[in-house]
């Protein structure tokens, strides 16, 4: 296996990890505040559709991105309404959002575009194009550093850089700001927050809205950057893999980056079986690699790789005690 193959593999790892990372951080905000969110998948899908559709109609990918975020936040607020205001079951609300998104996206797509539940292919300004970083071309011929910079670091869409920037920002918000302290507290013991005179409901809504925004960007990335248009069920379980990564990362931002990169690598390998065959000398079915994130999550949950302790008040609606 030559150096260029490694670079290519890592390059596609980054591309595939980006939506997982955004969704994982989205889930992190929500779950750190005590709201379990298995609706990441549905929100991504809805955002993927609305950003592609609006981008196709307006010709502007930025307006498309806003529409995607808007759709995702709307679903987040629905989840918030069900699980925060009405104290419903968070898992059921999440499942409902997944079904809702899966059905509605195709239905609306068919109604608007009549292309079998797809959006038209996006071109030009309706799509996030790769950005060539400064000096990429000039450095391309320098050994080692050149290819790494030109191929791996440069040449991604703006959303990829945004996603990676979100990691330190998330860490900083959670552990260095008042909002972060309160957010973490509300996921561990909402009664402590309540008796300290801070609104539990306000904090939790803030968390699900942030979750919606990040999920929206993840979905928009799928249909306007990774691919050029929306197709049915294009989120393809990424929301669930992001949840697995969240557990793997034990709800910590930097670990979320590592976990999603690992899962992204599995995804990249799935399409490059020749590489695996070359490295280990055995032909491995692609599906085996596709299943790896889930297998690893099961192993983690079984407690083999240290204990993953979720936020203690996670999944439970807050009811004031007498």
């Amino acid at each position, binding site marked *: 296996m030559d150096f260029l193959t490694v670079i290519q593999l890592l390059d596609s790892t980054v591309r595939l990890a980006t939506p997982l990372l955004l969704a994982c951080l989205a889930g992190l905000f929500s779950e750190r505040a005590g709201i379990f969110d298995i609706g990441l998948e549905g929100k991504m899908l809805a955002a993927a559709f609305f950003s592609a559709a609006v981008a196709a109609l307006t010709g502007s990918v930025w307006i498309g991105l806003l529409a995607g975020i808007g759709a995702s936040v709307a679903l987040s607020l629905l989840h918030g309404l069900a699980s925060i205001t009405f104290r419903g079951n968070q898992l059921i609300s999440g499942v409902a959002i997944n079904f809702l998104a899966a059905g509605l996206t195709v239905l609306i797509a068919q109604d608007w575009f009549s292309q079998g539940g797809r959006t038209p292919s996006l071109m030009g300004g309706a799509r996030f194009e790769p950005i060539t970083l400064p000096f990429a071309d000039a450095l391309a011929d320098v050994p080692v550093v050149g290819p790494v910079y030109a191929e791996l670091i440069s040449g991604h869409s703006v959303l990829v850089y945004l996603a990676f920037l979100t990691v330190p920002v998330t860490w900083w918000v959670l*552990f260095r700001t008042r909002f972060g*302290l309160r957010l973490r507290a509300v996921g*561990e*013991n909402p009664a*402590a*927050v309540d*008796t*300290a005179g801070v609104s539990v409901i306000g904090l939790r809504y803030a968390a699900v809205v942030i979750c919606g925004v990040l999920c929206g960007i993840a979905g928009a990335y799928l249909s306007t950057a990774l691919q050029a248009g929306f197709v049915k069920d294009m989120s393809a379980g990424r929301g669930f893999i992001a949840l697995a990564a969240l557990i793997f990362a034990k709800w910590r931002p930097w670990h979320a980056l590592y976990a999603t990169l690992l899962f992204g690598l599995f995804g990249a390998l799935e399409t490059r079986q020749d590489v695996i065959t070359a490295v280990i000398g055995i032909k491995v079915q692609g599906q085996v690699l596709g299943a790896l994130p889930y297998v690893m999550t099961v192993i983690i949950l079984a407690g083999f790789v240290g204990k993953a302790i979720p936020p203690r008040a996670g999944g439970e609606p807050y009811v004031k005690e*007498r």
Partner: protein
Amino acid sequence: MADKAPAIELKGISKAFGPVQANKDISIRVMPGTIHGIIGENGAGKSTLMSILYGFYKADKGEIFIAGNKTEIPDSQAAIAAGIGMVFQHFKLVENFTVLENIILGAEDGRLLRPSLAKARKTLLELEREYGLNVDPDAVIEEIGVGMQQRVEILKALYRRADILILDEPTGVLTPAEADQLFRILGRLREEGKTIILITHKLREIMEATDTVSVMRRGEMTATVKTSETSPAELAELMVGRKVLLRVDKTPATPGDVVLDIKGLKVVDDQGVERVKGIDLQVRAGEIVGIAGVAGNGQSELLEVLGGYADATGEVTLNGQPLDLSGRYSDGRSRRTRGIGHVPEDRQREGLIMDFSAWENTAFGYHRSDAYQSGMLLNNAAIRSDTEGKMERFDVRPPDPALPAKSFSGGNQQKIVLAREIERNPDLLLVGQPTRGVDIGAIEFIHQQIVALRDQGKAILLVSVELEEILALADRVAVMFDGHIMGERLSAETDEKELGLLMAGVEG
């Protein structure tokens, strides 16, 4: 004092939850720099009153004055702003946060944490010096003891500049030594001019710590008196509404045949640690044998083995017949058919299923008995009517078999368990911590029931960590320490001091 305005004055506070009048026209004045006790049984309305003061509930009627000014308290934020701090019975701390983080939560100085933490660290040191409240600011809550957690709660209130501190049943989770320390801290706070409201159902604490005391009963304030001018007996009467015996009234025992005979009993727990290290004990018909000891010295394991849910080795006979200590006939069902009733130590986990109704709980363990069957099905109507009778005879309030166990007070839950076990007429009754978390009126009743069973000629094995209870109730006392029985004494011929030495492992 007369010229000063009261720190808190409540005028005519009323609050109803549906048909239940939790607080009825309550008025109270607490002078600054005093410790004021509020005593009452569970469900008397103490907590509701304090929740109104802390902004959790809005009173239907009435006014609140803080330092002479009429104050509205619509939420906790307003209470904090008015200088009220509350230490709840169940601490409101974030377990995986540090002490410092818990203290600043909700009272941060700005959007960024670091300056807030630095300032809090400084303030904390000052507060420590001023009030003698020592805590480690960087310790994580889940790694420190309950005593220190409680000090963190007090510091939280002081950090928010509380002048009025409300403590709700503060000693429930503390050891006696920790409780003493708490009262020393409260004394110090009083010297510094803070006003303290102490809510409790323990008479001893009221007598030891307070300057004035108010008594609540069924939502009403029945009296407010100077602590120095009252007595425990008077307060108990005010609380319960009738004269209460603070000691158990019983005749000397007349022990008969040996019912339970234990020889060389050993219990090894899941971790392979030997918890009971070969004990011999006899319980005769018509006597109460009490097992005294500090919690965790093998008493619980003894009860579990006899109750049929832990395995053991050794020899145990009941009425002369051997009892299986392992295998398929060593379970709760076999024990019950052999005539052993069991009131477990932890009634909420082992005695009841909290979400199930009183009548379902009454059937547990006896659900196979003929009276409860109707063909292949349970005869729910029969169980219900039987439960109704039991609830009436054991004075369970409210006497509604359909209510879930969790909606009864601790004392009434215990009465449900007792009724279930005692009315089966067991030859041997195992009783663990019968009055833990039970209020005075119910304690008296529960003790009477146990003595009545003894007087019918039944054998009773009582395990309690309350030495006072053991001395009052048991006829004979065996003290356990580190899995051994350190000694047996007739309770009429011993005292707390002698038993205390045995409990500490000092040979008698």
